[in-house]
């Protein structure tokens, strides 16, 4: 059955007509042309299609769009403000925590969620949180360094805010 839903996608309200069985990944890619959402496994295992739904990292390849009326969706396309990168993107760039780049958008979004949810996660918690995102090129050491670097970047303004 077709139904109309409203999603806030990367800050902008979008009204969409979707079939009940349509997947969020397909809707984002095919209707909204957000190609940073990458499908890797179709079973919610690899993490390539990760987007943030109301802030939570979500396998968009397993999520029905029709059930998300009113939800807030973030994709990689919404992360940077013009030429200004999000601190997590900056960290991935500086630590070169990417190779083929296919897992990178999902990874960056998962790290963003991790650092918002558990800003003080230790290495074990970090690994556990991110175990649902595969990098087949296995740049995991670089990714861990990028998480650490992003954590520091995000902590700085917070520390500043507390001080003022």
């Amino acid at each position: 059955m077709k139904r109309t839903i409203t999603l806030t996608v990367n800050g902008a309200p979008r009204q969409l007509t979707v079939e009940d069985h349509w997947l969020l990944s397909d809707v984002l890619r095919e209707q909204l042309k957000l190609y940073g959402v990458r499908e890797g496994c179709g079973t919610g295992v690899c993490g390539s299609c990760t987007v943030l739904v109301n802030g939570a990292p979500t396998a968009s390849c397993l999520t029905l769009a029709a059930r998300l009326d009113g939800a807030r969706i973030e994709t990689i396309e919404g992360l940077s403000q013009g030429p200004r990168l999000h601190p997590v993107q900056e960290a991935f760039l500086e630590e070169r925590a990417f190779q083929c780049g296919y897992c990178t958008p999902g990874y960056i979004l998962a790290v963003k969620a991790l650092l918002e949810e558990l800003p003080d996660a230790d290495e074990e918690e970090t690994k556990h949180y991110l175990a649902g995102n595969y990098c087949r090129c296995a740049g995991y050491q670089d990714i861990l360094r990028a998480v650490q670097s992003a954590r520091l970047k995000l902590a700085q303004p917070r520390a500043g805010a507390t001080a003022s």
Partner: protein
Amino acid sequence: MAIDLEYSVIGKRVPRLDGLKKVTGRPIYTGDIELPGMLHAVLVRSPHPHARIVRVDKHRAERVPGVVAVVSGTDILNTPGVVDPWVGPVFKDQGILALDKARHIGDPVAAVVAESREAAEEARELVEVEYEPLPAVFDPVEACKPGAPLVHEVLRPSRAFADMAHVAEAGGTNICYHQKVRKGDVDAAFARADYIFEDIFTSPPAQHAPLEPHVTLAYIDEDDRITLWTATQSPSFVRVSTAGIFGVPLNRVRVIVPYLGAGYGSKLYAKLEPIAAYLAYITRRPVRIMLSRSEEFHIITKHQVVARYKLGVTKHGDIVAVEAENWWNTGAYAEIGPRVVHKSGYTSAGPYKFPNVKIDAYCVYTNNVPAGAFRGFGVPQVVWAYESMMDTAAHALGIDPLEFRLRHALDEGDEFATGTPMVSIGVKASLRKVAEAIGYTPPRPQRVPPGSGRVRGKAVACGVKAVLTPSISSAVVQMNADGSVTVLSSTVEMGQGSETALAQIAAEELGVPITKVRVHLPDTDVTPYDTITAGSRSTYHMGNAIRGAAKQIRDQLLAAAAEVLEANPADLVLRDERIYVRGAEERGLTIPQVFAAKLGALGTTLVGEHVFKTIADPLDHETGQSKKATEFWFSGATAAEVEVDTDTGQVQVLKFVAAADVGREVNPHHCEQQIAGAAILTLGLTFFEWMNVEQGQVTNASLLEYQLPSLKDVPPQLESVSVAVPHPDGPFGAKGVGESGTLSVQPTIANAIYNACGVRIRDLPITPEKVLRALHERARAHGAEVAPPAARQPAAVENAGATEVPE
């Protein structure tokens, strides 16, 4: 080395040119490209491992709204314009779709093309195929026996590559390739050996699992040309292969390769391109075909191998003979199996000085999913066997396995098993590096009974691979009047960082910053021929091609500047975008000034072009002997410390060190990423990755059941080390690096487990069940015997015809 100071870009941790794109999700991958009127295709796959296709009933499928065409093999055979429906890089044995019979479960027998993927998928269920099942064969050893069902009745060589020019037309056998090496006299050597060790090691089929699945978009352009956007590692082969299907000139096919969501060998040669091109040809509309993850398990795999090894050793610890007999399960289509068996076959004795060698490696058709190249081109499967054997023999003789390796390992000028003198070989250097980094001490394996808690062990292993030879890389380099540079190369950027590394080479040669260099991604309309992006060959081959092409521009610039400066070109330096007289830096010109002097108009260009072609002395068909088997060797060594839980069989890698002889690091960060990435990928294949295949049916064809290594599987300590034994002909001394980190991972782990608890695992992957079972079996065999003291008895049996290797 003082010479390093002369390089401005080579050897530097230059940021990747694709970085900003990749962290913002902007790279365009093949599956992102949409064209107006684009159709979607899906494949109907055989449920039988071996069956004659009797009839394909398309009627119900054709009636599904949105379906544009349903095609079978028969339709392809009857299509005017298709002059050769058979493809394959070594043998033309695979139809665009199955043309006569289905040869494996998942073999595409029909295709549906529709306005939407949904419609195509709905119609796929309605295609009715009538099969006549045939006897099938799955085991590569069984498939070699007389009377085994024949997968192919005749074999026609495709002659696409010079290194495979020697394959013969054949029929009546499932053995599609046989690599032999005969050096010295193994029979006489075994007769005088004091000890003989013989064992069988197996490797299972596995998945490359790049996160981007296979995907191709084909269309017929406004000039009636066949254009393919495709996720391939071999654009030049795809072009010639597609042109061959339709019998059209090469310039009537255009192959464009965007960034690849990785390949690891899975996206080589022709995969979805033939059927996509065919569907575009008949519908005259753009057609996209993209595999689901479960279909990925039915297109290409890593070769399953059964490897029988026999070593003859004197009581003094000299290895006098090695014999290897290896069966490679290449599945239903040869694909690149013969090259895999050739390249790994002739290195099956390892990087050692062995006077007497006999190798037989068989590439065998079976009714399984085709197997191809997988990061390492088959070499990891033979290293698994020979490095396990090396430890077995060393322990039996009471010799330190590291010492045993160093004693036999090849040095510069030593002869390989093929009789080839070694040039630029870093095996010993790599072994010493990893041993030092792991804190190696000679192991004292204990017979630890199951249930004795956790025990630790350290071990090393090494391997060598020969780069594909002969092969060709061509490049065109264009410098613009402002000093910016465009490199035209068909090397595919699949994550390895070729775009950046090749730009570094061009920048170094032309004295410009890397930010002024742009490397064009493959597009056969503009980028010239390259054999393949695989086998750790691109830095060396494409690097040399680009360097050669850049040198032509450089020579032109220097000649023009010499005239203006009234200097000898040989006295000029090109660096930092200026040409100046050596020793008199103020006497110089900027690159734009040289262009102005030479050409005198805005926006002019200078172009250089170079074809870099390597040559081999083809291996003798009967003996495998060759004065020059390969253009270069690249070796790797690994060391591990593991902890084995003897209660559960669980093995944890505490520390892992991987070293690769890269010749020279063009970009140290890329080398680290390649070496560490290769190690992690191969640790997955060591412990938990394998395709479970029963009677040709893959039973774990999804990433839910086929697990890949995650962050949690990375050893707590993982170190990658570049060893630099420069190659005299490499660009700035560089060799290759993509595969080196994979070579010896698996036997390193098995050896470390042996050193920890005294059991030897011979069948990959090394699961807790196997370790625990081995511990229990060993305990049963030795009754209530308690682990012996540290000084062990030599375990080998005297040479009295016995072949069992006791623990």
